């Protein structure tokens, strides 16, 4: 019992010290221009430190046995489970919906080429034909005359019609997102900035065929100042396998439009 007041005073004393240090960190982080979330993070660490130092001087826990020990164990497991699930849920969560559409587009060509894809395509065609036939039968019965039937699977726009330039650039921008180029290259002020160069002005530095060469063979060009990244082959040599020719062309067309001289895109150096 004699330890209780001293522990309580220790909690109060350390709590006050912790609050002062936390406040100091918050203030310093504000002055240094840290966003709010990071300031909270510093305060959270101070609170953790305070809790640890309070724990160090905590009085000994009385020994438990038998039923009480079992209950204490179960309660401990429950607390751990809640803390870990709750803790994990507090972090920003990636929304799988963002990825689902991307994956479908990325795997579209591979799926078409696979046995499963072929079977699914056949099934889809058969279903479309079946629906079309049902429709025709219904119209014949209603109108009492022959009806002109459009070829199965035609959806309005013919596949042979070429895409206009704007569409291609939009497709290229989509490829930028799908292939997650933003993870290594900053563009329009967003994305990674360490692994690869900013590309806002790349359209003024490389021609279409040179851009394409860089994508299909990353060792063909090196950005000035990125010698280490070039030597370590940081840019993956996989896009010629993962992407279809038309997607590479679209990405190239998009990159060629990036002509913002106010951004210091490093000079590309020909290596091959």
């Amino acid at each position, binding site marked *: 019992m004699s330890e209780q007041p001293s522990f309580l005073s220790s909690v109060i004393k350390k709590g006050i010290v912790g609050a002062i240090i936390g406040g100091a960190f918050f203030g310093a982080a504000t002055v240094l221009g840290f966003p709010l979330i990071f300031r909270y993070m510093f305060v959270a660490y101070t609170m953790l430190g305070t809790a640890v130092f309070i724990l160090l001087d905590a009085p000994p826990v009385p020994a438990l046995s038998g039923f009480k020990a079992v209950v204490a164990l179960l309660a401990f*497991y429950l607390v751990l489970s809640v803390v870990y699930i709750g803790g994990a849920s507090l972090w920003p969560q990636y929304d799988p919906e963002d990825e689902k559409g991307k994956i479908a587009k990325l795997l579209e060509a591979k799926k078409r080429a696979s046995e499963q894809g072929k079977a699914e395509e056949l099934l889809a065609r058969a279903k479309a034909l079946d629906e079309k036939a049902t429709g025709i039968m219904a119209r014949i019965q209603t109108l009492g005359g022959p009806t002109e039937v459009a070829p199965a699977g035609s959806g309005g726009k013919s596949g042979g019609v070429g895409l206009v330039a704007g569409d291609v650039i939009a497709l290229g921008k989509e490829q930028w997102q799908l292939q997650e180029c933003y993870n290594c290259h900053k563009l329009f002020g967003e994305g990674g900035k360490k*692994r690869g160069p900013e590309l806002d002005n790349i359209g003024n530095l490389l021609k279409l065929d040179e851009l394409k060469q860089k994508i299909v063979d990353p060792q063909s060009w090196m950005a000035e100042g990125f010698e280490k990244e070039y030597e370590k082959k940081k840019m993956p040599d*996989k896009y010629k396998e993962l992407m279809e020719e038309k997607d590479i062309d679209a990405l190239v067309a998009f990159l060629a439009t990036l002509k913002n001289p106010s951004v210091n895109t490093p000079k590309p150096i020909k290596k091959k």
Partner: protein
Amino acid sequence: MKTWQRSLLMLVGLLAVCGATAYAQVPSAPVAEFPYTGNRTAVWIVAQLHILFAGFILGAPIFVVISEWLGYRKQDPRYDRLAKEVIKVTVILYSMTALTGGLFIFVLLATYPQFTTWLINHFFLIFAVVYPLLFIAETIVLYMYFYTWDSWKGDKKARHIALGVLLNIIGTVTLFVIDGPTSFMNTPVKAEGVSVVEFIQTATLWDKIFNYSWMPLNLHRLVGNVTFGGFITGLIAAYLYMFSKSDEERAYYDWMGFVGNMIGVGALLFLPFMGYLLAYELCDYDASICPYMMADQLSMFFEMQGAMIGLIFLASNYYIWLSMKRIEGVERVRITVLAVLVMVALPFVMTYTWTLFPVPDPRSMAVLVPLVLIPVVLGRFIPFTVSSLTAIKVSFLMVIVGNAIWMTPHGFVATGAKLVEELELPSAWNFLALMPAKNSAAITLVFVTVVSYIIYNRAITQGTIVWGKIDFASQFVLIFLAFSAIWTMGLMGAVRSLLRKYFHTYNLVPDFTVESFTPTLAYSAWWITGITLVFYLVVSFAIILTLRVAQPKGHVHEGSPVPAGAK
């Protein structure tokens, strides 16, 4: 040939023809659909459970045989008893490993039949011959090792220890062999100028096994298993300490918890570097894996990992603290002030140095090595010292500082695509999110823990440790360490699998199912916790069954008579 023989032959022939025709016309079975969890999560649950059991049965024998050898060399019966008790639990969990392994292959075949067949065909020799033979050999040696424990003692003890070494060799080879297909799925073999799809057609079995991440995964799992085994031993000790009926029992299980924790923490010190090596090879294989891990969909999984590592280091240091508090004469134990100064300076000096000379540049070690050696070399010439308890308090502070650096992200966002200025580190402080800072944080955590153990060891040597009188809270710390270690294994297991993105085998076999997306961290945490609890339930059952229920009343252990106050 008699008539009945001819008739029988015709009947058999007819049956064979009809059977074959009927079989040929049987439509292929539909792919199984697991309700509620979905197929991918079902595979995840079974695979993770299997890995946890396998991790224990491969890790525990490593220190069991070391413990047995220590007992033999020091003639200390406690070590032998510890080894024997852990191997008893291992034997029970061995059957659980086999059970979950069988279940794993059934679930895989039912849910992903095409891919599973494809993988088996690529590693046919491994799956059909090598792995089963190793498993059989391990079963035989494990049971021999267990059942000869009491008969092979005295003069035959060396033979028994040799059998334990053989068990570990087989176990390690088994781990390395099965890591072949596992690592292949992450980093399938590739060659310069040839597509992965083309190269795989001509690659040999050895090419496929000896892929980029194979050896790093082997080392990571090997060290991880020892850590895991150590913490589970701590768990066994904690359970049995809590339910001990005598001071002698409490003294023994207090000591056992200390040994288990020491082995767990000892191996844990190497784990961040093994993890780093694995991540390094994965990034070297394909640089786009790196941002996916650290800056994109999995970045928050790594934040959670940082939190778990920090908690584990804090808990292991807290165990030392509680353990030191019961050492008589601990207040007399002092340490050079240089050790404390190096602890404080380490993260800052190393972040600066490694920013200038990133690892593995040889110059990156030019500052680290002298820095950590300063307390040892110059300490004896400098008369200033601090008390051991003060030094440990500083080590707690530095664990928090190190962990804060480890966990500082480039941005508080779950994907790089949504990174905006309000969630991003200021440019001037971006170095806190880069590898030099993370490496120095890992070094700090390891260094302060080593210093804490040196102080602890000095306190044990200079003071008198009273076994069985440790603060009861320490038993919860041991349980916490085991729980957190298992949870972290589950988390990192999920991360390693998710690194394949929407492929069963990265860039080679796409996963066309609707479940090939990255799940949320919260969803993953639910399942990881569930898996951890199921594993705990089974392990707790095995401990109670083998070490409490099966123990004859009045039985005296060879390692029991531990004098309270023994050094």
